[in-house]
């Protein structure tokens, strides 16, 4: 009976193409708005390294002002970054399997090619564990070792894009690039890597593209590199030199730790509290003990990556879909009632109410799916439009505005549900018609 009902559905679409188009269009627009909003929401609320959620932790220590908390809205929260000296102290712990101390800076890249433009590029100054802890994929080579972190050695990891622009995409490991006035040897070239959101450093927003250049953390002090992220200070201190800055209570270093077990996590938490207590004895950390390890999910929540506005937007999108569905109910009623005489005839010839209901339900389900497919096309166009609108100013939107298979499946499911929701009443209503009423009007 399903194939027969599909056949009848096609005949019905041909009979009234305008109304059919309006119904599919109404569903498509509702689905497109929902899919675009959900795609953005999904990207923002996504945990891009979910498989390490119980291994990878952002480390925080409350080194802040005794008079007022770092975050007035959430006074229980410690500052999200560490002081330089605390970061150095934490790097000495051997409990985590990987320790990442880092900050964002910028460097001028000169590949030594006469025809290549010299360009200031986002640079991450980090320990080599960055690549291991965050599972960063490499196209060529790999991360630098611990010795390179210590010296520090003039080594660099570059992004795939930089490698393509500078070396035409060949294996450039072993070659040299000049960063400002110093040569760095390439030890690794990243493969495509666009975590969204950029959970590992949310200071400049959650939609940043990863950096193009990565150099060892110790170069920060050696070259007196300034942070291109947030630097927050609470204490009135004389800062006349970079050394003064690294010794200050200003927080500007992001710190992550990866543990091989829950026991190590707990040991490190105790170690951290012990460290804080020692610092209290030295006159630091005037606030109550408040050290936390946040897994990635908690870290995204801590930084309010998904804002209330995002949730409101999703709610509004679904309300818009509901309005489209209500409109579709009206359109379907008009469509079905315009062919009520045919349903009356079928009833006279032996179709039960259930037969008529099923026939029309199949029609709306197919229409819903067609609306869903059309909605997917509109969504893709909408997301493409967003990319065009924001590409020049906010390159990071490019990584967000891609529809993944999950969102495509969600859109299809949503259109199916919307079709059924819109069609249930009209299909039921048309199944209840009295056949005799319409036979004379055929």
């Amino acid at each position, binding site marked *: *009976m399903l194939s*027969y009902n599909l056949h009848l559905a096609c*005949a019905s679409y*041909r*009979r009234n193409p305008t109304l059919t188009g309006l119904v599919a269009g109404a569903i498509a627009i509702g689905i497109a708005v929902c899919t675009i909003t959900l795609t953005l929401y999904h990207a923002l609320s996504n945990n891009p390294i979910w498989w390490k959620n119980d291994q990878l932790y952002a480390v925080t220590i409350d080194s802040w002002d005794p008079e007022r908390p770092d975050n007035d809205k959430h006074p229980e929260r410690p500052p999200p970054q560490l002081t330089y000296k605390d970061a150095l102290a934490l790097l000495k712990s051997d409990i985590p399997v990987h320790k990442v101390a880092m900050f964002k800076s910028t460097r001028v890249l000169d590949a030594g090619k006469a025809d290549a433009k010299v360009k200031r590029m986002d640079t991450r100054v980090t320990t080599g564990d960055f690549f291991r802890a965050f599972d960063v994929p490499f196209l060529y080579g790999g991360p630098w070792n611990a010795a390179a972190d210590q010296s520090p050695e003039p080594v660099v990891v570059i992004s795939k894009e930089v490698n393509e622009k500078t070396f035409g995409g060949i294996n450039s490991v072993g070659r040299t690039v000049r960063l400002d006035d110093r040569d760095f040897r390439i030890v690794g070239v990243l493969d495509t890597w666009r975590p969204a959101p950029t959970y590992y450093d949310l200071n400049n927003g959650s939609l940043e593209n990863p950096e193009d250049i990565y150099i060892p953390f110790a170069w920060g002090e050696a070259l007196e590199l300034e942070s291109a992220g947030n630097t927050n200070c609470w204490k009135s201190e004389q800062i006349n030199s970079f050394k003064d800055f690294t010794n200050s209570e200003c927080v500007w270093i992001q710190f992550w730790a990866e543990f091989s077990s829950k026991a190590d996590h707990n040991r490190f938490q105790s170690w951290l509290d012990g460290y804080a207590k020692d610092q209290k004895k030295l006159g630091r950390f005037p606030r109550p003990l408040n050290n936390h390890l946040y897994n990635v999910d908690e870290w995204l929540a801590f930084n309010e990556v998904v804002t209330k506005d995002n949730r409101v937007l999703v709610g509004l999108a679904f309300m818009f879909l509901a309005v489209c569905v209500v409109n579709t109910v009206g359109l379907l009623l008009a469509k079905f009632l315009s062919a009520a005489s*045919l349903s009356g*005839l*079928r*009833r*006279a*010839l*032996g*179709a*039960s*109410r*259930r*037969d008529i209901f099923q026939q029309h339900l199949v029609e709306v389900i197919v229409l819903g799916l067609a609306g869903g497919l059309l909605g997917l096309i509109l969504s893709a166009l909408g997301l493409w439009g967003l990319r065009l609108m924001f590409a020049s100013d906010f390159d990071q939107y490019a990584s967000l505005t891609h529809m993944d298979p999950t969102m495509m499946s969600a859109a299809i499911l949503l259109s199916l549900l919307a079709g059924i929701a819109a069609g249930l009443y009209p299909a039921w209503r048309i199944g209840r018609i*009295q*056949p*005799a009423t319409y*036979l*004379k009007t*055929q």
Partner: protein
Amino acid sequence: MLDMQGIAKIFRTDLIETHALRNFDLKVEAGEFVAVTGPSGSGKTTFLNIAGLLETFEHGTYRLDDQDVSRIGDDQRSRLRNEKIGFIFQSFNLIPDLNIYDNVDVPLRYRRLSASDRHTRITSALDIVGLASRMKHIPAQLSGGQQQRVAIARALAGDPKFLLADEPTGNLDSLMARQVMDLLEEINRMGTTIIMVTHDPDLARRAHRNVQIIDGQVTDYKPYEGPYEPSAIIGVTGERASG
């Protein structure tokens, strides 16, 4: 075959009640060809709708093929309509965007017959009405008479116990009307009971007997007394051919 006793049907609106049938008695035996006549608004179509299980009624009893169908549910009514009753309408009531084959197929689909069984029945029914060669045509490509023959084929394909025909020649010219009547008589001779509502006294005369309805009641009724003979036709009344 068909036995109605004391049937009453009332149509109600907020303001008025209309008694379409009142104390309506009629018995039709298997193999009969009965013509039902009467002026417009007399209740002929209401009778036909009730006989065809298309409408319910307030009072009385209705036995169809030895089964009391007075208070059966909608699903059962649909099934009985599908299996035991064939309908022929004045305006043919074919589905315009389905071809002839698919139109005849409609009632068979709801009987959940196999594809091969349906095909046999459809081709056989179209053969009987002489339209087997036109099965891929859509209704608009056929004349009125041919369309009515398709409707008859559709009614026959389900192998019904009886046919209900509502002004089957009302939209046809006299030549086509005669051909359709010839076909109905042929079908009746093959054993199918036919009840035909008509305004046309000439057509009514060709039935075994006539039943006249006025104001929702049978006014001229004589039980069936035997096989069809032209002399068995009882007096025709209600000849007025008003709408």
